[in-house]
């Protein structure tokens, strides 16, 4: 036990003292928000600073009047389409919009001519302008005035309440749960893969540097393997903790300091500016209750439970896969050689990951979701993705017990392969050889 501790310490220090650890630990939580923030910033700036696009309009129906907006500046054409096209072609302008004589009930035949492929967004904006006008025409046709229409507009918000086994009612929000499940599932997947490969790399290094026989004359191969797995796990937990601290600190202080608003908030404000006062008020009221509800829902989510489940399944999944990665590392002489064995290991992890998107987040309580979150190979990703939606206690306990059983099993299997593999170099290894190693008596 004392020797495992020595190895854990060594593995931990080896990695933590590296410059790359320091860089990754500090930069990752800064880089990702920086990239996302930078992109948002550029997008916002671009849309703000963009000049209005000049659109030539040939309106044969005569039903349209165009007002210049921030986005578009309209030039009215009076000639035939062919002439208008020629004229447009000589300019550097954005587009030529053609409106034929049309039936209000069935508007067809509109066209846009551009020199470059226009972005969906801009075409959409133009379509909106047309649609708004046609709607107004329809209103006229049916003798409805705008005020009546505004009154007709109804918005219903279903308040989501989930009833627990004990009959307790909780309001919930599947949007938040979806997001939470999504992020946690991806995190588990990434961590298990990244740190699992680090274990494998470490084992291969020991093998190729030929230190391993010296070490196993002092400690049992199993101790060496476990020491490495635990050592890297502690590096992972440390790195993870630092990331959370940095992200929390940076996001709260920096965002607070610059008063940067979230993109959704910005969009809302823009929308509000475009609406008239009455609508604004109405929307504001809806929004306020929404926000209140959201905050309430956030309060309802059992974060402590989720955090516990996350850490449990992270460690469980890591140990389960880590042992397998160690076995692969012991069997090969180089990273390149490891590919053939890595694939079958990462496959179930990938199944869990795909299952998370395709099944669990859409139908968290269906039979597929159940099995994915029970079977130990997929449960780390699946259960963590599912937990926020509320999982019956017995399922959670079953999954945890199976996961513990699972990693004890894989560690046992891996240990048997590892003890032989680390002393074998230059052998061509296939699955038959692995099976043989597994069977060898100690």
């Amino acid at each position, binding site marked *: 036990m004392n*020797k495992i501790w*020595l*190895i854990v310490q*060594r593995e931990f220090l*080896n990695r933590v003292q590296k410059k790359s650890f320091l860089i990754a630990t500090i930069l990752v939580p800064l880089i990702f928000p920086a990239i996302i923030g930078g992109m948002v910033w550029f997008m916002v700036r671009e849309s703000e600073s963009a000049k209005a696009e000049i659109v030539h309009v040939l309106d044969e129906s005569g039903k349209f009047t165009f007002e210049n907006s921030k986005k578009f500046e309209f030039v009215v054409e009076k000639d035939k389409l062919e002439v208008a096209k020629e004229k447009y072609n000589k300019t550097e302008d954005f587009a030529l919009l053609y409106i034929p004589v049309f039936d209000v009930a069935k508007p067809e035949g509109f066209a846009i001519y551009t020199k470059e492929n226009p972005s969906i967004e801009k075409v959409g904006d133009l379509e909106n302008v047309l649609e708004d006008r046609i709607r107004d025409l329809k209103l006229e046709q049916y003798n409805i005035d705008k005020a009546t229409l505004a009154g007709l507009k109804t918005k219903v918000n279903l308040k989501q309440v989930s009833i627990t086994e004990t009959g307790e009612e909780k309001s919930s929000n599947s949007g938040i749960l979806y997001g939470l499940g999504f992020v946690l599932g991806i995190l588990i997947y990434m961590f298990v893969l990244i740190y699992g490969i680090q274990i494998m790399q470490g084992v291969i*290094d*020991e093998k190729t*540097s*030929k*230190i391993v*026989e*010296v*070490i*196993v*004359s*002092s*400690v049992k*191969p199993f101790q060496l393997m476990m020491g490495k797995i635990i050592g890297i796990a502690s590096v992972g937990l440390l790195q993870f903790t630092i990331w959370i601290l940095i992200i929390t600190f940076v996001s709260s202080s920096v965002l607070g300091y610059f008063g940067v608003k979230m993109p959704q908030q910005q969009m809302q404000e823009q929308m509000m500016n475009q609406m008239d006062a009455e609508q604004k008020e109405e929307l504001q009221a809806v929004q306020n209750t929404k926000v209140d509800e959201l905050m309430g829902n956030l309060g309802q989510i059992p974060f402590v439970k989720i955090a516990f489940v996350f850490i449990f399944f992270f460690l469980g999944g890591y140990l389960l896969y880590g042992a397998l990665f160690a076995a692969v590392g012991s069997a090969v002489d180089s990273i390149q050689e490891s590919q053939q064995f890595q694939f079958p290991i990462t496959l179930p992890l990938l199944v869990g990951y795909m299952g998370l998107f395709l099944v669990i987040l859409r139908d968290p309580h269906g039979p597929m979701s159940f099995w994915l979150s029970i079977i130990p190979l997929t449960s780390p990703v699946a259960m963590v993705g599912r937990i926020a939606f509320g999982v019956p206690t017995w399922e959670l306990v079953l999954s945890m017990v199976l996961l513990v059983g699972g990693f004890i099993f894989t560690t046992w299997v891996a240990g048997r392969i590892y003890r032989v593999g680390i*002393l074998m*170099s230059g052998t061509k290894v296939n699955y038959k050889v692995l099976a*043989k190693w597994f*069977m*060898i*008596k*100690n």
Partner: protein
Amino acid sequence: MEALLAKGVSKRYTEHVALDDVTLTIPQQSIYGLLGPNGAGKTTLIRIVNQIINADAGEISIFGEKLAEKHIGTIGYLPEERGLYKKLKVGEQLLYLAQLKGLSRSEALERSKKWITKFEIKDWWNKKVEDLSKGMAQKVQFISTVMHEPKLIILDEPFSGFDPVNAQLITENILELRDNGSTIIFSTHRMETVEDLCDHVALINKSKKIVEGTKKQIKDTYKSNSFEVLHKGTFTMNGAAEMVTQQKVEDDFYKTILKMNAGGSPNKLIGDLIAITEVHSFIEKVPTMSEIFINLVKGNSNE
């Protein structure tokens, strides 16, 4: 009490037998040569002694006690396939390896300081192994093998890859360790090493022990009672010895190989020779370990 006593040790793998009923007696404070061609089972035996693998059958006792986990610190092992952590500094490396052998951190620090001073590599303490030359790394490796003051030191092909200067340094230190009470096992097929250093020898071939004993015993067993005589003028001989060859060296000088018949003695043979020729030299032809080794291995495979 023997340093190491192996009784009927066997190890089978699915397709072959690595060790078949091997019994060895390694006396204390000896330098014991474990010889044998590649694949004979030497490394398997050494790994069993180091408890890296377990024997299927047989018993091993070390200094009178049954081999157990607590003996890990009693043994120092330099494997044939050896290396160091490339990214680790020399000092950290020595401390780590010594601690794994059961030394406390402070003991490890004290001893490693002593050894690096002795090997004049004090400046390397903070150097990474990947920045060292091969010879330097070998010194570090040797230190890590003996730093915990093992009573039994097992060196598998210790001189392979060592330059002559380092080999000399290691040899001196091995002898010193022996004089201070350690027992040393060499696994090698470099016969010069055996000839120069070993006092006891065992030969393993095809997973079986073929011969074991002191170097003198073995040579006595396998000597052919042949003598090389340098003399003036020719002669023929009957009775006491059989003439194997007689060659002219130069002018009237000849070299004759004689094989003494059973019951004869060298002194009597010299007496007989002096009577019939002018003897310039008379040397017993003692087989080298290399000759014995090759004969035994070849003879063994001809069976």
